Structure formats: structure tokens, C-alpha cells
């Protein structure tokens, strides 16, 4: 059952303020992830889990890095369920968890951050992991 929208509004805003495009429908997900070239970071947002509170600031920090994905999009697990399910179809080899992040390049998942890699870690540590992936997969020579 979704949480009250009033509760999640600040969590949505935290994502859009850092430049993420929020995808709320399957059509929006397909437009963003289907047959798209370049690099896209998909952030599976989450209300609970004791981890999302670090994951969002971590991504915000990582996006201040010099090299970053062409595009950042987000779906909200437990809230926008159809959009989230559709997004997960684009990285179906990976077990669903939230929060989590998938870095996709030319339609292929090249880096994945699971919830278990976020829990209990500070945003700086998570951001370093992301920045390394950005350097590896999003740079001009990647």
C-alpha cells in the first residue's frame, strides 16, 4: 500500500532538485530507457528501508563529480508501482531492491548498486563508488 503522497513529496523533490527526471508511468519509463543510446542512471527511490536516507544524498554528491551520466531518472518503489516494475524489466537479471541504482550504457547494465551496498554506509562512501563507475563508464573514452 503506498504511503500518503504528502509524506513522499519531499523525497520526490530531493531527487528532482538534483536533476533527476521522475518517471511515473510505464510510457515514461519506456521513453527514457527503451532503445536509448548513451548513459542513464536509474535510481529506485524508496520511503523506508533505513537506506534511502543515505542513497539520495549519495547520488546528489556523486552528481557533483566531473564525469556523470548523460541522464538521471528515478522511479518510486511502492508508490509508482507500474513504472517501477517496468523499469526493473530493463535490468531483470538483478533482484529487485529499493533503494538501488542501475547505470545503463547503450541499453546494457554496466554497474549496479544494491540496497545491501547502501545500508549502513555514509553518503560519501556510496558517492565514491558511484563516481568510480561514472569515470569508468561515462567518460569520453569509456
Amino acid at each position, binding site marked *: 500500500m503506498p504511503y500518503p503522497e504528502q509524506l513522499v513529496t519531499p523525497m520526490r523533490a530531493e531527487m528532482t532538485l538534483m536533476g533527476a527526471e521522475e518517471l511515473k508511468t510505464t510510457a515514461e519509463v519506456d521513453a527514457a530507457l527503451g532503445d536509448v543510446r548513451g548513459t542513464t542512471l536509474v535510481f529506485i527511490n524508496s520511503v523506508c528501508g*533505513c537506506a*534511502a*536516507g*543515505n542513497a539520495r544524498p549519495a547520488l546528489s554528491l556523486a552528481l557533483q563529480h566531473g564525469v556523470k551520466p548523460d541522464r538521471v531518472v528515478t522511479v518510486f518503489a511502492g508508490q509508482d508501482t507500474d513504472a517501477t516494475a517496468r523499469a526493473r524489466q530493463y535490468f531483470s537479471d538483478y533482484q529487485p*531492491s529499493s533503494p*538501488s541504482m542501475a547505470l545503463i550504457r547503450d541499453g546494457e547494465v554496466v554497474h549496479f548498486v544494491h*540496497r*545491501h551496498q547502501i545500508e549502513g554506509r555514509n553518503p560519501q562512501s556510496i558517492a565514491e563508488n558511484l563516481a568510480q563507475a561514472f569515470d569508468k563508464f561515462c567518460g569520453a573514452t569509456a
Partner: protein
Amino acid sequence: MSGHVFHTNRQELHGVTVVVNGASGKTYVGRYHERNERGVVLKDVGIHEPGNGLPLEDWLERQRKFGVKVDERALVVPNDEVVDLGRFG
């Protein structure tokens, strides 16, 4: 909402994915909920049984790379089954 965390009054490992080695030889990977008189309460648990599928290290590596494949949504690992318990990842 930065840094917003629910459940701040829970045990330290609450919400953290852990690996539990069992006296039976089973290995459990799941999200720690709490430990009580009945045992360790885990959520979204993957279970490895010796001789059933991948060797343990390969199974653990697969869980790390692709995420925990859930066998049980919730499980209590009895205290006398728990040999050791630590963070997964």
C-alpha cells in the same frame, strides 16, 4: 529530507542485510529485523543449503552481484541455529 531515516530506535543492525551461518550447515542472507528470545528475525531471505545447487562461495558471490534472491519473505533463525552473524556485502 536528506538523511531521513525511519526506525531510529531499533537495534543497530535493523534494516541491514546480514549473513547468518547456521549450525545445520545452511547459510541465510537477509535483512536483519531484530533478535529476540526466538532467534534472529530476517526479512527477504535467501537460503543456501549445502549440496543443493552452487557451492557456498559461488552462491554468495551471485547474491552480491545480482542481489539477494528471496526464498522466504520473513524467517526466524532460531538462536541455537545461529553460529555467527555479520554484515553482508
